[in-house]
């Protein structure tokens, strides 16, 4: 049979995050890792695709290992908690290419706070030109198995690093986060925190000189912190989409563990 394939333009770039079947886990527990793409933590499952996976790993107290899964399946990864403490899951994708009409691209730059790229396009008099962009996902998820639930740097091109464990915070407190690009703090980038059940509680801030922001976590439930960084590559652009997911529980529930 002949295969006809046509691709339509994406309307806007979407977030991508890791959604585990549980955030507070026990040693020995099996967890499913769903990859999801969408907005405001509402999204669609992305089945496991070896074409897209650059790294899909878990790092715990004993080191790093691959997150396994069945090709084409959702959930994309399955793992067993092997050591107590923090479980940092990371998914770093190979770049995907998109072509965006000028208007959509400009809209997306404004939405994601990519002002320096907008300024560059203005300087180059490219505001009316369509764009070829390649984007890579740098998603992390922080799970806790008992005490010692801090984040770890996985070394992705763009990475959000929680400087305090969210599992040691109570609802209403702020989380200090550092944004790292190419092993160095990224200055002036927009970082946003979204709560799944209360999208209205969205928090955002620009990173300071040390690449840091503090974002208030004003509700229980699943949170995603996200940031996008873009660089020009010749006449085209490359973007990196960092996300970090975790869960906030009521103080009582956390202290019991």
């Amino acid at each position: 049979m002949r295969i006809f394939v046509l691709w339509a333009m994406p309307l806007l770039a979407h977030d991508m995050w890791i959604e585990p079947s549980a955030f507070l886990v026990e040693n020995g527990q099996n967890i499913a890792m769903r990859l999801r793409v969408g907005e405001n933590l509402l999204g669609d499952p992305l089945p496991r695709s070896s074409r897209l996976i650059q790294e899909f790993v878990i790092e715990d107290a004993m080191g790093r290992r691959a997150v396994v899964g069945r090709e084409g399946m959702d959930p994309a990864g399955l793992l067993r908690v092997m050591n107590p403490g923090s479980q940092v899951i990371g998914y770093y994708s190979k770049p995907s290419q998109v072509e965006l009409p000028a208007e959509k691209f400009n809209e997306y730059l404004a939405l994601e706070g990519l002002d320096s790229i907008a300024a560059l396009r203005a300087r180059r008099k490219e505001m009316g030109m369509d764009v070829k962009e390649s984007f890579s996902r740098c998603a992390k998820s922080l799970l806790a198995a008992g005490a010692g639930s801090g984040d770890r740097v996985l070394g992705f091109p763009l990475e959000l690093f929680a400087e305090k464990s969210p599992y040691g915070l109570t609802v209403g407190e702020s989380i200090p986060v550092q944004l790292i690009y190419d092993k160095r703090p990224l200055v002036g980038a927009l970082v946003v925190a979204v709560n799944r059940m209360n999208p209205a509680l969205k928090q955002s801030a620009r990173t300071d000189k040390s690449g840091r922001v503090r974002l208030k976590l004003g509700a229980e439930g699943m949170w995603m912190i996200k940031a996008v960084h873009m660089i020009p590559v010749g006449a085209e652009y490359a973007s990196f989409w960092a996300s970090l997911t975790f869960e906030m529980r009521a103080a009582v529930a956390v202290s019991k563990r």
Partner: protein
Amino acid sequence: MLLFVLLLQAHEIGTSRVSAQFRPDSYAIEIVTDATALGEKLEAAAGRPPVSVTDAGKLKRLLLDNDASFRRKVSLRFDGAAPVSPEIEYTVVPAIDATSAAAATIRLTGKIPEGAQHFTWNYGWTYASYAFTARSQTQWLEGGSQSKAVSLTDVIVAPNFYETARRYLVLGFTHIVPLGLDHMLFVLGLYLLNHRWRTVLLQVSAFTIAHSITLGLSMYGLVSVPSRIVEPMIALSIAYVAIENVFLNELKPWRVALVFAFGLLHGLGFAGVLSEVGLPRDEFVTALVMFNIGVEGGQLAVIGAAFLLFGWRYAERDWYRGRVAIPASLLIAAAAIYWTYERLTGVTT
């Protein structure tokens, strides 16, 4: 195909799929998607907390309750006119295990406006790329983006009787010439016995009747012999016929009987090929008969070529048997013995 692969690399493809079917006056569109994810989005759109529902019964109720909202992000248009309003039927298939997700199957049906030429589709309830298949064409769409227009008037011709007949006739012929060197040499072996028409006719008829029998029986599933047995025996049959040519130059009754038996074997070999290709369900007999006729054509072409090349002018000469028939038969025998060894041991060069 390469293009397809490159594009697949470039997109985050989700788990939703949409297919559209068009009859002369009606359409049916089926959306298969993750039911929980859709439920969350519908709840959020209604201003409620997007609780993850996993129970199939509850999910179905949730989808039914949000029907009006669901319709707002789905658009079906004919010829660019205002969107039509379909009948929608929601079903939810429960998750098969603890890690999988319940699947929603949403069926949209309705009448095609009279005289409509084109159909366009837009589905806004997914953020990932999804396949939209209509009239044998697949478009990869992003959620919320409009499909290219699907023509409702282009005739997509299903292979009909004549097309099927032609395909299987060609398949049968090419299985002998040029693809089936072993079958070609077998037929040539039959021709080399002697140049009398009666000899050729009797052997070819016996061979044809026999291979038609086993081909037919195999294709109806009544006979099945593994190819690891059939293929070496076919090679051996070629060697036998060729070697016999060296010692014999007239048609004996046992030769016809043996050729018949060998025909049964070759028929099993033809069946192996035909099974790999498959026979269309609705034109089974046509395809089977035409394949067989194609095989006959191939055999007759081999004999015709041999006749034109050397039989016609030299078969009556005294030196024909010594200089043509016997050396050619020996070459055929050598090749066939090698094939027998190769097919028995699985050693290939």
